[in-house]
């Protein structure tokens, strides 16, 4: 019993010692580390024991949403998305340290979860784009996050939009919202540039949209630029933090 314990703890210590220099230092100590080892559906008792440790030492890796360029090889008119978060509970001052998740559809109106695994098949790790057009950034001192993406297309029966989910710095949801586009710019993109022009203009106006029709004044973004130079979207979202 004592010897078993010693062996187990010794092994655990070895494991940790091997990882610490490469993993960015034991960041993950929270949570339940029961030493009673019930999980780990590994090999059965009758297979060979590993003669090597788990490949390269694992390191803590952020969610693949955390990046500013969310294009992931999707083609379309360049769009820079600048979102500023302001705090209603603090005289509408900029809110720094907030998490901002955004996601939107491709030029042809698809979200990554649908095209990722066509027919319900398997995603592959080679397909680095499996979460395309989805991203997460943390607001700076000015409450600003910036994403590089493409101008979204549209799908029926919705007006063109970007989804946004704002969390405080500890990950508590503050607001789920959507961002609308000026119709004149959508019309230009959707009629003059392939592959948008294959589908033509949106079938639902902002004023007829089930989400925007009653709230367009606070959800309509301002968009400047051109098809050749790309567009810049700016929008301010007010939350109670």
């Amino acid at each position, binding site marked *: 019993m004592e010897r078993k314990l010693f062996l187990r703890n010794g092994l655990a210590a070895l494991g940790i010692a091997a990882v610490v220099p490469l993993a960015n230092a034991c960041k993950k100590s929270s949570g339940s580390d029961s030493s009673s080892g019930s999980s780990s559906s590994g090999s059965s008792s009758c297979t060979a024991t590993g003669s090597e440790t788990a490949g390269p030492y694992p390191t803590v890796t952020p969610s693949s949403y955390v990046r500013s360029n969310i294009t992931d090889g999707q083609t379309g008119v360049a769009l820079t998305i600048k979102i500023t978060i302001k705090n209603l509970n603090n005289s509408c001052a900029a809110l720094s340290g907030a998490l901002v998740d955004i996601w939107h559809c491709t030029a042809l109106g698809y979200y990554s979860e649908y095209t990722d695994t066509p027919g319900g098949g398997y995603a592959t790790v080679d397909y680095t784009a499996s979460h395309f057009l989805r991203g997460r950034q943390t607001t700076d001192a000015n409450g600003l996050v910036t994403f590089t993406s493409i101008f979204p297309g549209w799908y029926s029966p919705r007006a063109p939009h970007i989804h946004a989910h704002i969390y405080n710095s500890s*990950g508590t949801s503050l607001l789920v919202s959507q961002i609308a586009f000026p119709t004149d710019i959508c019309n230009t993109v959707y009629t003059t540039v392939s592959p948008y022009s294959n589908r033509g203009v949106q079938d639902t106006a902002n004023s007829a949209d089930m989400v925007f029709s009653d709230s367009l004044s606070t959800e309509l973004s301002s968009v400047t630029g051109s098809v050749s130079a790309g567009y810049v979207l700016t929008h301010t979202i007010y939350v109670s933090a």
Partner: protein
Amino acid sequence: MKGIIRLQYRKIIGAGAQQPWEKYVFNDSHAEFLLQAQLYNQEKKYSSFSELIAHVPNAEKLHFLVSASVVGYLRQLNGKIPDILNNAGKLFLPFKGYRFEIIQSDIRDKSKHQVAINFISEPVIWYDTIGDQLLVSVNGDKEAGEEILTEQFSMQPFLSIYSLKKPV
């Protein structure tokens, strides 16, 4: 040759995770679940994943949404399915395909969080079965008379043959 097979290994990771890689997957997938679940729980009525699935339309998208938290860890495996060893005790089974699923989880109780990663191997050539072991090649077939490097391994719990292509 018996055929070309792809193997599936279902690796379950829960609160009892022991290895650093498993702990990272456990911790980070739960953290991502906490973030993403709020989209489907805006009135804060539910606590468990199964409640969300039962009551909230589209909550099954959480499988996909939470999977982004483990993609980086999957890449760290350098294309080899974990835990499945050849008879020399080495990882050998190449994979690119995977499917991530949340088995159960809870917003208030992290110890209930449990996920599975289904690894789908690349096609391997199955030549024969020796005792309880499969004799395969992961490097493709060769012309008659040429030497084929092979691997030997045992079938084991959570490992199954996912697909079979018969020889022509």
